[in-house]
């Protein structure tokens, strides 16, 4: 789907966030970008979204570059409009493009918020607000879903529920997903492929493809993935 070729991103203060990042995102991937805080994961996600530009390198799309509505973005905070209802928030990308908002209602129901359409964000829990944010990103049926540590601020119980829902939603929709996290367990549970990033300046230090699906969090496949990713991160620290 997308080849990131030798991407370099420096901030105006001289800090190099990304150095020679080179990897591919394949169609249908659930790619997790795993790395320590400050390694440039979010910067990389913004570059893929087209919200930022690299100083060097290029993003080579296999087909035409994705346009409005082809990319869904879920931020670390739900970033909902507090003055709008859950349904209005979920329908925002459709409304901005002059499309029928009905799919947003269906998507709200799919993420478990049927009956909450007319409720404003201030009356929803943190987990419910994130569900609205996910519904908003998926309602226009994007080809690429970008998620920037969306569950980092949630409690463990809610995070597990949302991870399970997200995995099912990604499988149903078939859209390519790039998910940023610094949690090995989250990466092990969700990913079909993990790109491990080095500390700043961020590089893709290793990639791991996982073909065998994880069933439960405590099964052998999950444990094996956690072990592989832990070793990979330890190697980064040592190297």
């Amino acid at each position, binding site marked *: 789907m997308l080849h990131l070729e030798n991407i370099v991103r420096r901030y105006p203060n001289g800090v190099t966030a990304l150095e020679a990042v080179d990897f591919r995102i394949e169609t249908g991937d659930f790619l997790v970008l795993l790395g320590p805080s400050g390694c440039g994961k979010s910067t990389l996600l913004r570059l893929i979204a087209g*919200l930022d530009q690299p100083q060097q390198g290029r993003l080579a799309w296999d087909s035409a570059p994705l346009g409005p*509505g082809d990319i869904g*973005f879920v*931020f670390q905070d739900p970033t909902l409009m507090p003055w709008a209802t859950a349904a209005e928030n979920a329908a*925002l990308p459709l409304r901005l493009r002059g499309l029928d908002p009905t799919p947003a209602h269906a998507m709200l129901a799919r993420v478990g918020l049927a009956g909450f359409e007319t409720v404003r964000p201030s009356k929803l829990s943190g987990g419910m607000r994130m569900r609205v944010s996910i519904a908003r990103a998926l309602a*226009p049926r994007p080809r690429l879903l970008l998620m920037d540590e969306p569950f980092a601020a949630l409690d463990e119980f809610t995070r597990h529920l949302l991870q399970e829902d997200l995995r099912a939603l990604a499988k149903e929709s078939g859209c390519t997903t790039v998910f940023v996290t610094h949690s090995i367990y989250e990466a092990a549970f969700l990913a079909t492929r993990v790109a491990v990033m080095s500390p700043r300046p961020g590089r893709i230090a290793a990639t791991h493809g996982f073909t065998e699906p994880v069933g439960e969090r405590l099964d052998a496949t999950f444990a094996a993935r956690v072990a592989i990713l832990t070793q990979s991160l330890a190697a980064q620290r040592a190297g």
Partner: protein
Amino acid sequence: MNRFAPVVSFAAALAAWQLAVWGLHVPSYLVPGPLAIGGAFLADPGGLLRALLATLMVTAASLAAACFAGVLLACAMAANPWARALIKPWAVILQVTPVVAVAPLIVVWVGNPFAAMVLCATIVAFFPVFANTAAGLEAAPPELLDLFRLSGAGRWQEIWLLRLPAALPYFLAGLRVSGGLALVGAVVAEFVTGAGGAASGLAFRILEAGYRLQVPRMFACLALLSAAGLAINAALGAVSSAVLARRS
């Protein structure tokens, strides 16, 4: 209990004021007591209330004009960097220029006394609502702005659907300040234009009472202005609370 504290303190201050005037034998042409002021009001309630109404009409018209112009220009600034570069210096010039200095020119240029007074008061009331709305339009969450960009939203969609709703609390805060300033501006404009006659406002009545050494009547006019200022502040505060409560 806290709700009654302002009333109790106000009543106590009035009582102390009256007792001081009585005790010190202060003549009413220097400092009248609250009873003399009340008496002056009761001597001509119709005339003073008509003058208050005239002042409030100028206040309301100038506040509406300040809101319209302030929001419009703030939106233009948010929509276009050229408009920002063009408008901002003029807005600052308008803010720092004393209205008393330009009012005589406005009276000459505009001609119609009511329109001249509204224009003077609008200049005084304009800046808080303009500056607050402009700040609010810039305070939209950056992630939502990114989302609008990703969805291919146009500049006016961004302003109408995101920046303006995000600016509402800022606008309401500015409106409350501008409400008080519109009243101040209306009184200053009346002083400067010296508009008299049957439809004259409270400022003219103060001048008129001053010429006649009717000091209790001057104080009655001042008391009405203070009451009007409090009422405007409370009304705009209530509107602000209701609007913000309704949307959260």
